[in-house]
């Protein structure tokens, strides 16, 4: 595949995984948690590197899962001690993130693991770091890992679709029916963590939050059905990721920034034009109602 083809494929994979996870993030009112995890996985990545002295995607993935789970556990723990939910999130993630930054600055020396890269991502580098996959040949490592993560996310969401739905909508009923609400919460945090870290190379820690939240928030404006919201959010994610890439090459600027910008534009369009919640519908709706 061409250099640009790999970049577009990677961007699309980020768009789908983040779009799907984002739907549950916003419906579970955990947008803040996405922000937190996108920062704390940095600590996981650095620690994984310090222990293994290797900078492979798989080590990072494991480090990120642990960091993401730790974040979720610490937040839960502080909250159970009486600290407000958003305050607990704020305290936990800034602290873990700070430790990560200090470790990068002091321990990792001159290794290619700079803060800039982790925070901003650099999708243009993705095609250069390849690995050998049987049958497929040379494949960019980030792209391969993203495909695996996307597959895991889709399987988990589809296999437990009704359980995700009920624990999101009515956790008390779910628990009373015997569905393990807490376990699902931690599985969910794990999925958010691996999605986040797999998207790092492409968009970085800061922009991944935009990819997680904004397409889902835009999709929410268009539909009253969870399944359609999931599909729309994934489509919006892909559109923003690919659109962002072209915007960036057109005006020669940061790719991850442009992708996040594109999600914003899509949201704005949705906000103005969506049939149920949008501005325009507010003026049209009385007419359709009168016809009923």
């Amino acid at each position, binding site marked *: 595949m061409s250099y640009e083809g790999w970049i577009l494929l990677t961007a699309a994979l980020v768009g789908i995984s983040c779009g799907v996870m984002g739907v549950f993030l916003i419906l579970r009112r955990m947008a803040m948690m996405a922000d937190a995890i996108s920062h704390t996985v940095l600590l996981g990545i650095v620690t994984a590197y310090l222990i293994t002295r290797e900078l492979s995607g798989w080590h990072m993935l494991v480090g990120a899962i642990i960091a993401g789970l730790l974040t979720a556990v610490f937040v839960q723990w502080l909250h159970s001690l009486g600290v407000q939910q958003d305050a607990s999130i704020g305290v936990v993630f800034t602290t873990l993130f700070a430790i990560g930054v200090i470790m990068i600055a002091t321990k990792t020396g001159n290794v290619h693991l700079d803060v800039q890269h982790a925070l901003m991502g650099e999708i243009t580098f993705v095609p250069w770091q390849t690995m050998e996959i049987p049958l497929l040949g040379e494949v960019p490592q980030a792209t391969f890992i993203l495909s695996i993560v996307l597959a895991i996310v889709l399987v988990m969401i589809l296999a437990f679709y009704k359980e995700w739905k009920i624990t999101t*909508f009515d956790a008390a009923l779910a*628990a*009373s*029916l015997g569905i393990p609400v807490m376990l699902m919460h931690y599985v969910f945090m794990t999925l958010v963590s691996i999605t986040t870290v797999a998207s790092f190379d492409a968009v970085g820690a800061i922009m991944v939050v935009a990819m997680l939240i904004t397409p889902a928030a835009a999709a929410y404006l268009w539909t009253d059905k969870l399944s359609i919201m999931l599909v729309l959010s994934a489509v919006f994610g892909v559109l923003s990721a690919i659109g962002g890439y072209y915007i960036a090459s057109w005006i020669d600027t940061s790719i991850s920034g442009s992708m996040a910008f594109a999600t914003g534009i899509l949201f704005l369009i949705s906000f103005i034009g969506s049939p149920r919640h949008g501005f325009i519908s507010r003026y049209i709706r009385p007419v359709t109602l009168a016809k009923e």
Partner: protein
Amino acid sequence: MSVLKVEDLSASYRKNKVLSDVNFNVKPGSLTGIIGPNGAGKSTLLKVMLELHPSLSGKVSFFDSTLAKTKRRVGYVPQRGSVDWDFPTNALDVVLMGLYGKIGWFKWPSKQDKELALEALAQMGMADYADRQISQLSGGQQQRVFLARALVQDADLYFMDEPLVGVDAATETAIMTTLKRLKSAGKTVMVVHHDLLTVEDYFDHVMLLNRTIVEYGKTDEVFTKDNVQKTYGGSLRWMKEA
């Protein structure tokens, strides 16, 4: 056989003890109103019995067994305000959720499940609203959907937290008819209730609760002015005047 037996139950939110020394034994087939002032611990009692909130001490047995073994037989209707009504789903889907426990892992609701859910909606007079997005239902309609979801669970013991709050007279009648029908089908129902004026009409048993059980028994024996006064303390005065 006992449907629900609670011994020495106590519970707290961190240091704040909310329930202590709670003991009772529920008569099969009874329809109980749980009455008490705001903050008395009514919702907490339901949550602790259902293990949604930890207890400090005590024992709760369902059908002479544990909750884990009898979950299918216990239904719960949370307070309406406890869920997000802007969630992207429709009335039928919410009712179907009552069947998720029965359907089990890795399976999707079948056509038959959908028919059961539709039937339950129809029983609550909501058949025409099956496809309606839940945020576009009135408060009373939302409560009917919640009731339909409980019906579809086909449990033997139901807990309902304030199903009659914020509904109009028609919905109140519809819900009470349903509860009485459940009772005559031999089911046991416990309902958190706020309106003291309707207690005698609606419930054959009353639990007067304020951090512990003040009285629990047959309505005509227990629901006396003295006992109610004892439960509500000073706060009763304005309620009677209103």
